[in-house]
């Protein structure tokens, strides 16, 4: 039941990200709710929900609004796999774990993305520009995670976060 609920919620979040969130850019930057959902799923659920979400989100993003098929699935999937591999060292009922998770995932996402763009000889971006966007999005994502993680954790696990 919770998995079905997660899938519906994820689709809703995806649609919100590609429509609603785009209208409320702050300093021209939007947070990545999709990445937040993937990180939360990896930390909260015991099975491989985070990996399934990474594939679903990545596929939707690539088909509907991306420059290449596979680019988003690849990045989200690697992030989910890396998080699963370090999950045993993180305590998921600590808010700090979630904050660290989203902080490093966002930075990794942008590093990976720009690396792929360089390899594919896409349009050039200066280091300063990359740092500015990465930094702002990392702050937004971490702030959103700070606000929502405790609420989602309690709703799913049934007890308060530490």
């Amino acid at each position, binding site marked *: 039941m919770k998995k079905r609920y997660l899938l519906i919620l994820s689709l809703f979040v995806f649609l919100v990200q*590609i429509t609603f969130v785009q209208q*409320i850019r702050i300093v021209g930057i*939007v947070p990545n709710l999709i990445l937040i959902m993937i990180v939360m799923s990896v930390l909260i659920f015991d099975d491989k929900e985070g990996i399934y979400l990474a594939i679903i989100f990545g596929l939707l993003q690539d088909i*509907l609004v*991306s*420059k290449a*098929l*596979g680019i988003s699935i690849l990045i989200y999937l690697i992030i989910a796999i890396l998080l699963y591999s370090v999950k045993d060292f993180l305590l998921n009922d600590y808010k700090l774990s979630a904050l660290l998770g989203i902080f490093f995932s966002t930075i990794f996402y942008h590093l990976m993305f720009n690396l792929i763009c360089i390899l594919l000889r896409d349009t050039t971006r200066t280091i300063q520009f990359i740092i500015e966007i990465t930094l702002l999005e990392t702050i937004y994502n971490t702030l959103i995670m700070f606000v929502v993680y405790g609420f989602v954790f309690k709703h799913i696990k049934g007890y308060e976060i530490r």
Partner: protein
Amino acid sequence: MKQKNQFQKIIVIITIFILILVTGLTFGGRENITKFENLLGKVIMPVQKAFIFTSGLAESIFDPIFSIWENQRIIDEVEKENQALRKQLVEMSLDTNEYSELKSLQKVFDFIDYDFNDQLIDAMVISKDPGNWFNMFGIDRGLEDGINKNSVVINGEGLIGIVYEVGDDWAKVISIIDNKSSIGMKIVNPDRDYEGIINGGIDGDLKGYLFDPKAEVFVGDLIITSGKGLYPEGIIIGKIKDICKDSDKLLTDIMVEPIVNFKKMNRVLVLPSINNRKEVE
């Protein structure tokens, strides 16, 4: 158990390798998308439309709050521009080449030839790239409406980009700042008829060069499409932001700031691709 882990690792490595391959192969846009992609776009489009309608309402509430500083900057710029334009107007009225200048301005305000106006297809923006890097977006028109890959996309401000990939009733559009393909351009001034090439450049601007190494251009000069290549003549692209004259080079490099605000687009107009356009007499 150890064998299972080993097997999982191999699966992950193979998957990643396939994804890298697919990314490389599909980068740059495809002539035809798969049936699955087409179907997915068809199924999701009505939901996207509903979301975009709701988000439009939200925009009308949030936009004035988040845009206070930006609006003030725009007002200041417009005031300065207004003063410069008044001065220019006086100079123009005294100019002996009044007629040719007015013809040039006519092109700017009308954007494109009248024959093309009949072929323009109105489209609604139904989705935008969720990230902060690309300025790609989805529209609710596709092959069934006469749109093809490389159809030109504009709005009331100027040139936006071209259709990147197209489904039956939806399409993906790539902005000019994200696209590395060249755009033939020229300066809007009958006395300084310089042409050149620009393409998606660095950090959201356009970078290019003028063919004439002695070209007299200035920061703020308006740039329009020259009609050479995919784009019809007379669509506003942007304003010159920076000029770099290198004596060693035989070309004048320019940086152009696009006229279109790519973050704020709700409706666009699509012109069929060059092969499907009616001939302009």
